[in-house]
């Protein structure tokens, strides 16, 4: 080959072509084949997925009063590898956040890199601490956005509202049952930051906005709740019961208007609460209802046309031996009409009514009234109660169950059964949530009233209602439950408490009163239950004497608040001597 200038030039050109082809292939390899891998590595260095936090939805009562909402705060954390002056940091942070210095030093000297120093630090305090750290040139302490759940009414309605854990997940009450609506969805934004860690806004990447949690509106009216809370507190002071529950409900819709339990706790100080205080006894406590359950046996007998309201039943003059066991009435009664069996609360009469219906049919009515199954209220942890099938009954069960023994029901189930009577025999699903809205007030979901079933005919319901009016009269067992100006229908209950050693405890009672007002067109149904109330004399510990007056006071105030017009001539409530306090309860 002749090395002339042309050849040399060609070779140089070929060299360049090969060199730049190599570069080109390398570029294609890096930019196309390995693009994702290297882009990912580069992104790790300077691209950061910044979360955009969603705010948990608020909870309101029926009148839009705030029951639960959020306050922005900060979580103070430390990165152990960035701490530059441990002693100074311990001194400053310990004083500012009120953490014992020894505890703080132990935390910071531990093996963990990411250390949470304190949660729910108010914004103002966090700002002040941030400034002081900057002034003293202390590094390694950081602030993370957070929010704290605040309950402005403290202990009021605590069992219904419930509370959240520190990750803002509901763990009790409506906070738990409506968590999917309240929680919201966090958003995110891809950002790039410079060497100083500051965001370069120009290079903002993909972004998804957060969706704040929906707002939940309850059916509870805080004004009625306040009435109930005041009365239950007064009852606790007066009778010192171990437990107490009061429920107010609208029978036509199943809306819960008020629900209070004792013992209770402050939602803002829930860390100090004992498990016993946190139980919503209206739905998770099982009790033997006592005589309030007689409405079921009377309703079954009337609905099956086994008897008429005026049919007479011989009540054995107060003592009846059945199945080898004696059944007593609190007073000797001879012949009583079906109506008077409820008015006088005859155990023997109720037992004979159930016997007339038959075991299987009576059991069916118990189940139709909703006993033995969860009511479906939007509250977690509800129990179904305990109703044994007839196959498991003893020989005397058919005489004991009609008077509210040998069964376990929740206070809410008992309220619903009374509401079914008040509502023409229609059993409604109880509701505590009225609607769900977004932050702008636009309705996302409305929960409409749901009728579960027609338990008894409207005529039977009316007949039972007529009898229950007699209970709250001078002839009945609950004269003290009367409200001036209104006709009330209701039923008392006094059940001996089950002794853990077997049988019943003679001196301990669960007293209750369940009723509705006005009797002809009920606006609300109420239930008052006191467990082991302390009275000066055991014979005063009756539903009509203890729970009845409490219902009366609540009903009177509620009627005023709801602006119900008195339907009959104003009359004074029958004078009933108030139960004197015991020495124990005075303490």
């Amino acid at each position, binding site marked *: 080959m002749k090395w002339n200038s042309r050849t040399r030039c060609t070779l140089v050109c070929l060299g360049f072509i090969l060199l730049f082809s190599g570069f080109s292939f390398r570029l294609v390899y890096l930019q196309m084949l390995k693009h994702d891998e290297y882009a990912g590595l580069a992104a790790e260095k300077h691209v950061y997925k910044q979360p955009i936090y969603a705010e948990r939805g608020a909870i309101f009562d*029926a*009148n*839009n*009063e*705030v029951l639960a*909402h*959020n*306050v*922005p705060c900060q979580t103070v954390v430390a990165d152990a590898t960035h701490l530059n002056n441990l002693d100074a940091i311990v001194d400053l942070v310990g004083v500012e956040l009120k953490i014992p210095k020894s505890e703080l030093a132990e935390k910071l000297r531990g093996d963990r890199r990411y250390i949470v120093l304190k949660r729910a630090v*108010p*914004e103002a305090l966090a700002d002040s601490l941030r400034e002081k750290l900057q002034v003293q040139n202390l590094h390694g302490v950081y602030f993370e956005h957070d929010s704290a759940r*605040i309950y*402005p*009414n*403290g*202990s*009021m309605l605590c069992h219904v509202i419930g509370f959240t854990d520190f990750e803002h997940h509901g763990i009790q009450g409506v906070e738990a049952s409506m968590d999917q609506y309240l929680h919201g969805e966090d958003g995110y934004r891809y950002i790039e930051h410079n060497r100083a860690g500051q*965001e*370069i*806004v*120009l290079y903002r990447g993909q972004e998804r906005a957060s969706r704040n949690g929906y707002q939940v509106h309850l059916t509870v009216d*805080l004004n009625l709740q*306040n009435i109930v809370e005041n009365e239950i507190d007064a009852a606790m002071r007066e009778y010192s019961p171990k437990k107490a529950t009061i429920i107010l409900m*609208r029978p*036509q*819709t199943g809306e819960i208007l008020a629900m209070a339990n004792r013992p209770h706790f402050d939602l803002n100080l829930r860390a100090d609460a004992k498990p016993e205080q946190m139980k919503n006894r209206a739905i998770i406590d099982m009790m033997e209802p006592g005589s309030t359950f007689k409405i079921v046996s009377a309703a079954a007998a009337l609905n099956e046309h086994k008897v008429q309201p005026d049919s007479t039943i011989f009540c054995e003059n107060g003592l009846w031996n059945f199945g080898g066991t004696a059944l007593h009435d609190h007073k000797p009664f001879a012949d009583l009409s079906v109506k008077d069996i409820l008015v006088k609360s005859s155990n023997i009469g109720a037992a004979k009514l159930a016997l007339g219906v038959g075991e299987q049919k009576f059991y069916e009515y118990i189940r139709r009234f909703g006993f033995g199954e969860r009511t479906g209220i939007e509250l977690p942890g509800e129990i179904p109660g305990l109703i044994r099938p007839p196959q498991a009954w003893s020989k005397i069960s058919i005489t004991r169950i009609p008077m509210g023994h040998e069964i376990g029901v929740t206070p809410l189930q008992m309220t619903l059964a009374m509401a079914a009577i008040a509502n*023409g025999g229609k059993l409604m699903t109880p509701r505590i949530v009225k609607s769900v809205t977004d932050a702008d007030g636009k309705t996302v979901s409305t929960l*409409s*009233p749901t009728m579960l079933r027609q338990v008894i005919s409207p005529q039977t319901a009316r007949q039972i209602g007529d009898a229950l009016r007699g209970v709250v009269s001078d002839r009945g067992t609950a004269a003290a439950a009367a409200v001036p100006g209104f006709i009330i229908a209701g039923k008392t209950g006094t059940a001996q408490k089950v002794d853990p050693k077997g049988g019943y405890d003679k001196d301990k009672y669960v007293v209750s009163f369940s009723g509705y007002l006005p009797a002809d*067109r009920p*606006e*609300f149904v109420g239930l008052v239950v006191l467990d082991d109330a302390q009275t000066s004399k055991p014979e005063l510990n009756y539903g009509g004497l203890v729970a009845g007056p409490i219902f009366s006071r609540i009903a009177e105030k509620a009627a005023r*608040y*709801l*602006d*119900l*017009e008195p339907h009959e001539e104003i009359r004074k409530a029958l004078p009933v001597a108030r139960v004197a306090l015991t020495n124990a309860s005075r303490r």
Partner: protein
Amino acid sequence: MNRSRRKNWNTVNAASLARWIVLTAFLALTGLSYVYLTLQLYHLGDRKKALENELASLRTQNDVANVQIAALTSRSALQRRLKEGYLKMMPIAEHNIVRLTIPVRSTEDTIQPVANQRAGR
């Protein structure tokens, strides 16, 4: 001499020179504009971030104020103030209530949002 010197001179194409000058100036201006606008974008980004922070801060202050208002006007707080004597309530006497209309009663099966429409708020 003069003649040979005149021969070595290159003639300047004024039109072409002007074209290049304009082109270069245009490119320079474009470059400068690009740099200026890019800096402006950075600056606007910083301003945007500052405004976002300010907005977040205002929102936080608003939320804190709302919480304080809710706490001060809550039923528990008002009752406490009532007990302490800061507030006083007078019951409305029956003769002071003027009833303009008799409350409308619904039929038994009608579902009402509140028990009494007049009491509903």
